[in-house]
């Protein structure tokens, strides 16, 4: 409940290095997660969430966990970790808690695909 009442890192980053979108408002929840990366570390993270209380709470929890982590560390954040940290979500709410971790992984993928492009560009000279 605390996580829901004062969710952290909600919003958008206009010049994000990676963006991950999951869910579909038609089916229920939808999340869009933004990361800003410097020296392989997540230095800023924000999330837009449409959905139930569990989705908002796990959005907040996931972003707080990931903040400051290296990309490799952030990749290890799983649904389970988030759910455990929030502990005791009703079973039918479990899938909502998956969304934030999924969005984070998608944002990392997005970041990596972009930077790999850049690294290739660097190597070119």
């Amino acid at each position, binding site marked *: *409940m605390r996580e*829901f*009442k004062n*969710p952290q890192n*909600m*919003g*958008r980053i206009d010049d994000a290095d990676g963006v991950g*979108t999951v*869910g*579909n*408002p*038609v*089916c*229920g*929840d*939808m*999340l*869009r997660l933004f990361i800003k990366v410097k020296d392989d570390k997540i230095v800023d993270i924000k*999330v*837009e*969430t*449409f*959905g*139930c*209380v569990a*989705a*908002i709470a796990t959005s907040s929890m996931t972003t707080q966990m990931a903040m400051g982590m290296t990309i490799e560390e952030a990749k290890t954040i799983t649904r389970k970790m988030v759910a455990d940290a929030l502990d005791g979500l009703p079973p*039918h709410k479990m*899938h*909502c808690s998956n*969304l934030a971790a999924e969005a984070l992984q998608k944002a990392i993928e997005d970041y990596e695909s972009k930077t790999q492009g850049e690294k290739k560009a660097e190597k070119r000279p």
Partner: protein
Amino acid sequence: MAFLDNASSTRVDERVIEAMLPYFRESYGTAGMELGHSRDVAAMKGLENARKVIAESINADPLTIVFTSGQTESNNLAIQGAALANKDHGKHIITSSIEVMSVLQACKALEKDGFELDILDVDENGLVDVGQLKKKIRKDTILVSIQHANGEIGTVQPIEEIARMTSARGVIFHTDATQSYLKIPVDIQAVPINLMTMDAHVIHGPKGIGALFVRKGTRVERIMEGGDEERRLRPGVQNIPGAVGFAEAVKIWGKDESDNLLSLRHYVEQKMSTTLEDYRVTGHPVKRLPNLFSMVVEQIEGESMLVELDMDGYAISTGSACSSKTLQGSHVLKAIGLRPEIAHGSVRVSLSRFNTKEQIDGFVEALVPIVNRLRQFSPLKRGEYFMAKSEAKHEEQESSSDDDQSLG
């Protein structure tokens, strides 16, 4: 705490509690025997007086009132009971897409027993089209079940017209009047309804007691077996304190109560229209329960609003999928053609005699910043409220083939 969820259940009035107490403490007999001991006689008098009060409230004979455990049982007794008792006359049943689950599921369960079912669409205000209903009636139609008023959006159906039409065709007409009972009076002598569901717990009576009006001559089979109680239609020891409480709730219902509720609803509407942006009222603009205001708020989800409002001391309800265990959104909001993401933003405010204008002021003032905050971090943009009916149909098919994973 301001309780604005009175279509779900209501506070039991102190006068109702007072009326029940003697039946817990002294007249705790059963009503089985005609010449029983004094406690049984007192219990039976309480029960029969209660029956008279309920009967008078709809201008009916006490013999036509069957006490049940509530709305769900009344609906099941009406639908299963009438279908089974009249199956020799036909197998066709008609209902609407916005009935409560106990009506819809009772009708659907009968399909498995060989009955045929037509479920009528409603328009975007939630109204059944009587012309369409008329066309659906066949020679073998035995039962039409259309609610009086909808509990989610408040739309009131033209039950007088439907009753006259079905009656002329010799078709049994059942109406679930749970939400409208007392709020919109019905005179059973003037309107040829055959079966009508009532429940105590939404009119400041206790939970666990309801009634079914069964017109003389309307054939109904009982769905539970046992003794001869309730004219053999509902066996078992009656919930006498419950019936007495139910009757007391009816007795204390004020003459001006519906008008007062309507004024308060107008106050909500006015306050909302001057303070909140990007929402839409659901249900019929005029033909609506006096105490029910429902809307969809764009870009945000109802459960979040519900939980935040609760923290601020306001109890409302939502038809959002997130708020149900099965994660199915409200079938009513779907039936009036709302896009799923719009239906997610549903908020229902339902009023009672215990609500005040001050509570409404506080509620709207609490709601606005919540909506603003949630909108701020919503990934959705201001959008369209309605999809075309054909589109809705399509979505429905798609989502019914989805598994739980994809819902939220």
